[in-house]
């Protein structure tokens, strides 16, 4: 009864949990280890999403740079992703999550 009361009163509403779900499909498409690039919203609003993406995609290391063969895109909207000229979209996973290929990279 106590457990039911507690569960009824408190609904898990965890930002990290939601982020894990958001990046689950992208994670399956990426290598298991190593370093990939990362691009996202500019400014302060892009800081927390970077760490949530890093948390979800560990043990991959996300380098906040587009200069990598694979680059993770994490945007508040998919339209913001068009700003990167040297990146080619490999797959759009929806909800602002994209996988790019760095075109200048070997």
């Amino acid at each position: 009864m106590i457990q039911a009361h507690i569960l009824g009163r408190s609904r898990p509403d965890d930002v990290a949990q939601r982020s894990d779900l958001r990046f689950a499909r992208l994670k399956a498409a990426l290598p298991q280890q190593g370093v990939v690039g990362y691009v996202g919203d500019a400014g302060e609003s892009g800081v927390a999403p970077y760490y949530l993406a890093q948390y979800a995609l560990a043990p991959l290391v996300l380098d906040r740079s587009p200069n990598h063969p694979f680059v993770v895109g994490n945007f508040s909207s998919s339209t913001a992703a068009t700003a990167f000229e040297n990146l080619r979209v490999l797959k759009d996973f929806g909800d602002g999550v994209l996988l790019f290929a760095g075109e200048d990279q070997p």
Partner: protein
Amino acid sequence: MLVALLTLLGAANGLLLVLLLWPHESASSANWLLQGCLSLGFGLGLFSVVFMLSRASAGQHLLAIDLAAFALLLAGYLYKNKRGYPAVTVSHSSGEADPHWLVLVLRAAFAIALLAALYSAILRAITHPHGDGWDAFAIWNLHARFLFRGGEHWRDGFTPLIPWSHPDYPLLLPAVISHFWTALGRENQLVPTMVGLVFTFSTVGILFSSLAHLRGQTSATLAGLVLLATPFFIEQGTAQYADVPLSFFILATIVLTCLCEKSSAVGPHRGLLVLAGISCGFGAWTKNEGLLFLLAIFAAWLLIFVIAPSRSIDSNTPSQHEENARPASISFVLILAGVAPFLLLIAWFKHSIGAPNELFAAIAFHKLLDASRYLVILKWYGKDFLRFGDWSLIPGTLLLAGIYFASPNKHMRPTNFASRACHIALAMTLAGYFLIYLITPYDLYWHLRFSLNRLFLQLWPAVIFLFFLENPAFDSSVPGEKPVSR
């Protein structure tokens, strides 16, 4: 089921470590509670060390190493019992002189506070399964994921490529979590939640049982109430940060040091000092602030016992100075023996990952000459003194200060060498925090805003312990003094 078995194994390892170094003495319920609470934290600490040894040696048989550690500790404990050390007399608190109704009221209040704290902590844990706040997922749980998911590439996660993840932070908490996950074969957010709850309520348990052992039920209950009525302590305990685990080890170090001084025998009680050293080492393996506390306790110990024993409490004659200095030097070595393995572990870790501490990467000594920084920090120390606990009505710090000034006999009694050393160590740690703020490369206001309350919280349980240990208002055994009923 496996989580429960692993928890039992960890607690058993912790208990054996505690019993191995604990003096033989008559059992009391407070003593059992104290040993039990210490065992839980030490068991988790041992799990983290075992896990890192397994990672360092690329070992695949984590459970086998756990069982080997258990067998080793059990053998040591059985050997100790076989040798049969003489019993040590530890001075317990005198019989309670408080009126029966007061004891009942205090116990009822404590029980209600404990239940309310448990309820609040469980609610928070369910609502925030990945922790509550930036550091939980950007530092501690991220490191746990790298240790677990990275396998032999675990070092990848401790790279400067991930700014603000503090790759130089010690690994007790991430390694404990990763130990459980590795044994389970999968990630389970119940693990960091349970680890947080264990450290939170074991800290309350240590505070209560140590004071019940040394000063009696009234002091213990009041001290427990003060800690349980600190909302920030319960919030942080379930936030999956490392500050409450560090507060556990700081308190344990101070309790064990003070308890050692209460032992009357010369030989076997010294195991308590080794335990104090181990606890201090676990603290340094939990957070960098634990390293600062370690330095502070050694500096205080040197100051009180070795460099200036003549100014110590019980030294009235030159011969007494010599008598005090010799065992003090031995005690110093015993604490060092407890700490040394952790210093090696921390040195290996820091060397292994090679990431510099961001605070000391570029020290700006000119900031030490900026008087305005001193004023700002002092102002924040003053403000957070009253508000760090998130108290809604009366700040706990103000309450303790009020009790002190209302006491008929205001003279706090550092009853022995150890408690005086602990006072100095806490003061030095606070001064160390002050110095770090002076030279911080970050924006000073930002740094103070997001860290000072947690730094104060790290020391809070130890401050409550020393307050109730030494305030004569709560001493039922002082002739002619009636215990204060509050």
